[in-house]
């Protein structure tokens, strides 16, 4: 019925005709897919500008570089574990038996122009990809950007980070060199330690016994198809949510919970963001041209007998490896290998391998659940588009630093042998110290960080009330020396006073009028969160400070002839 109506309606109004060739093409596309509404929606969308907002972009751009360089590598890489004798160009490995995967990696490095460069671009980008994601998540955490309405996007980010680790590890293992082979062997050992299913998962993964001839091909399809596919989908979801929510912004003049202040996409933001892609690519190219990464030719082909000193995973897996290193396998005569007599025989639990997996589970679990944990404790269910300055959320910042210290201790433990050789200390002592830091470090870090945050808040108060130290020493008429203080202008002042110091929320009775046990615990945690706090300067305090200024200081200032510093 509508089919014949459309020509009628179009004939009644004259359709727009483009005059230039570009215009014709643009108009063609526009009339087919409707580009105009999209330009209208996004063309002048506002993005706030702050350097710390760009780590996510770095992650996105390195991912694009990974796709580009990875595609090039895939044209030449042969993920086969078939046995060959290397007769290629790298002389120190000439005549050595190896797998096809390793041989083709050597060929990429030594027989294909730009192959080595692309390998290095790919590997350095991968290292930077995970690093950028990590720093981005730290930024989001410490500024409270995960709060409503962005909780789900935080979870998507967490999954992206985990998928980033998966992409990295599957890629690290592909060349089938000695280093990554021993890495796989460690993974195999950890899998075998899993109760009941461990041995079978190992057999399924490797297609039989370790190392078998299947693992490289299987990791390859995960690495080039499944994992990047999932990452791509999640990135789309992540960015979609960023558009829906609009970006957060730091507190400051003109910024409210109801607006977003910044630069429009076209032209400024698009130019900066687009230009930044080239900058990231340029930096990676620079590093790849000048610095070796993953020199597989040094490691030799995988063979279960040799191993190299300093066998470590890439940095992002390091913390798990470090947890394995920190765990004592025996304490005196007590072994963490538990043989458990059961009716059908004895089964073994390798607690020395299983226990170190718990910190990893705690860190990842807490990370994912944090928005809900914090919301439960603080009872803060409002939307937040203005970020917290980390100092204005001392307990959260403290917890974050505690987590970072915990992570970094495990991370450092993964390089305990290199710490020992490079600082001339005993390997065993390094491990003992790190075990101590692993247990105490987070607590100490929490306490110190919280204190620092509170001190910084007090300093902000000082500045608001008495102005900023101008670095000028003046003599009063009575001969006293004092430093001149300059009042901040309203724009700076607003940034320092526009935050809320949350007060503890006491336990609330439930619908039945009783206070449940869970609610009591919540109230306790809530008090722990908020009992130490520094209130922002109030209107009365500021007015009081201003009067104080006018009574006290103007004479001194008049004497030096510097008027104007006290305005505002």
């Amino acid at each position, binding site marked *: 019925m509508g089919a014949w109506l459309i020509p009628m309606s179009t004939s009644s109004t004259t359709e727009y005709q483009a005059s230039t060739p570009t215009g014709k093409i643009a108009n063609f596309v526009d009339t087919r897919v409707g580009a105009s509404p999209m330009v209208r929606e996004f063309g002048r969308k506002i993005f706030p500008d702050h350097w710390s907002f760009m780590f996510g972009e770095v992650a996105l751009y390195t991912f694009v570089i990974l796709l580009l360089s990875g595609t090039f590598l895939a044209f030449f890489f042969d993920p086969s574990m078939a046995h060959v004798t290397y007769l290629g160009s790298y002389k120190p490995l000439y005549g050595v038996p190896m797998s096809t995967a390793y041989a083709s990696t050597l060929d990429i490095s030594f027989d294909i122009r730009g192959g080595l460069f692309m390998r290095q671009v790919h590997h350095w980008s991968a290292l930077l990809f995970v690093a950028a994601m990590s720093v981005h998540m730290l930024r989001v955490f410490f500024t409270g950007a995960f709060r409503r309405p962005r909780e789900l996007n935080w979870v998507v980010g967490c999954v992206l980070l985990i998928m980033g680790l998966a992409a990295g590890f599957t890629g690290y293992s592909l060349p089938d060199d000695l280093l990554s082979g021993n890495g796989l*062997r460690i993974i195999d050992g950890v899998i075998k330690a899993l109760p009941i299913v461990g041995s079978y998962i190992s057999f399924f*993964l490797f297609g039989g016994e370790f190392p078998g001839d299947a693992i490289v091909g299987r990791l390859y399809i995960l690495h080039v198809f499944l994992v990047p596919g999932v990452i791509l989908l999640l990135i789309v979801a992540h960015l979609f949510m960023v558009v829906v929510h609009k970006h957060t912004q730091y507190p400051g003049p003109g910024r409210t919970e109801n607006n977003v202040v910044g630069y429009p996409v076209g032209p400024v933001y698009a130019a*900066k963001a687009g230009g930044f892609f080239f900058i990231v690519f340029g930096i990676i190219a620079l590093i790849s041209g000048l610095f070796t990464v993953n020199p597989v030719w040094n490691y030799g082909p995988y063979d279960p007998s040799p191993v190299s000193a300093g066998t470590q995973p890439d940095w992002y897996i390091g913390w798990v490896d470090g947890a394995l*290193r920190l765990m004592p*396998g025996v304490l005196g005569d007590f072994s963490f290998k538990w043989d458990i007599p059961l009716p059908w025989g004895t089964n073994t639990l390798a607690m020395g391998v299983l226990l170190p997996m718990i910190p990893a589970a705690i860190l990842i679990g807490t990370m994912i659940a944090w928005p809900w944990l914090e919301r439960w404790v603080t009872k803060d269910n409002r939307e937040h588009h203005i970020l917290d300055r980390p100092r204005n959320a001392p307990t959260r910042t403290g917890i974050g630093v505690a987590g970072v210290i915990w992570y970094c201790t495990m991370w450092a433990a993964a390089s305990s042998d290199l710490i020992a050789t490079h600082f001339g200390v005993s390997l065993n002592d390094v491990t003992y110290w790190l075990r101590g830091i692993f247990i105490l470090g987070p607590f100490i870090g929490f306490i110190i960080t919280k204190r620092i945050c509170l001190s910084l808040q007090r300093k902000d108060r000082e500045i608001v009330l008495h102005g900023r130290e101008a670095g000028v020493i003046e003599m009063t008429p009575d001969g006293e020396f004092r430093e001149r203080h300059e009042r901040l202008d309203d724009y700076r002042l607003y940034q320092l006073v526009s935050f809320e110091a949350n007060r503890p929320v006491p336990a609330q009775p439930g619908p039945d009028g009783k206070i449940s046990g869970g609610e009591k615990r919540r109230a306790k945690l809530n008090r722990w969160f908020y009992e130490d706090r520094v209130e922002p300067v109030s209107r009365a305090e500021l007015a009081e400070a201003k009067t104080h200024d006018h009574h006290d200081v103007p004479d001194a200032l008049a004497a030096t002839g510097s008027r104007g510093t006290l305005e505002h």
Partner: protein
Amino acid sequence: MSEQSHGGPEHSGAVEHAGVEESGKYAIDNPGIPPHRPRLADEDPRAAKRAERQVAVLFGISIIGTVLFFVGYFVVGQIGPDTEIGTVRLQNMLLGLGTAFSMLGIGVGIVHWAKTLMPDHEVSEARHEVRTEEDRQVAVGMIDDIVEESQFKRRPLLRNTLIGAVALAPLPAIALFRDLDDSDNRSELATENFGVERLRHTMWDSGVRLVRDPTGTPIKASDVTIGSAFHVIPEGLNELPPTEHLNQKAKAVVLLMRLDPQDLQISPEREDWNVDGIVAYSKICTHVGCPVALYEQHTHHLLCPCHQSTFDLTQECKVIFGPAGHALPQLPITVNEEGFLVAQSDFHEPVGPAYWERG
């Protein structure tokens, strides 16, 4: 655009104050976006011209970078068997520097352009509710209609059988992965056992000679002087087909060392497992399986380079440091009539990391 307000001089954002609800909340009211401060290039046409030239120079650097890449690619030329490592390094460096200049020239140029010449007025845009109440009501109404029209609720027979069918349908896909481990169907070795039993057995057996890794030459007891360490594989390993070779090697590698017999503390049942202080231990770490290959000949410690588990050779490779949970298994050895070292039997316990069925 109607919802945006410019912070530009003609339309100063400074007058835009926060919403009424925020007034009085903080010590001072929101003063609004600071007035726009013009840049050099906004006021001085010569500064603008200079910025334009700078951007053009940066784009020029990018072009030079691309040329440099081609110099690296074509002038350094094809690499291959006769290429020195230094040439490969030079080519890699030229490709890297070329790409870096090419990319940084474009990137820095565009950003410099945006920073100096494009308008830099801060702009404010209103946020919207993620979900309006009106939308919610319409959506709920639609979903109710859809559920009603589908008759999903009214016909529980359809609903329940569908749920059952959908729950079962994915199971074949899971079963399909069973043959990820198809090794029991294609075993070439008659001695191979099924499933986890494979983890209990290695190639070592009574009379199998200890040979050097990787050459496969047998070892006489007299070759092994005090303080030396031999990396050992069972004889016949090198003759296995490639995959089987790696699988068996992953379990069978052994470290052979000779100590002064007086340094060894030997438990009664292992008294004849060594040959005049020559002892053989599995090289596979009992922690997670790295080769424990570091032998310190004076302290008689064996160290795993992956996680630093340390085993004391004098105490039958008991764990003295690190994450390993049990001692390295010892291979009982003896000498055959020709003076070569041979195994007395297989290991008496599974080698390598502990697993559930180990017992």
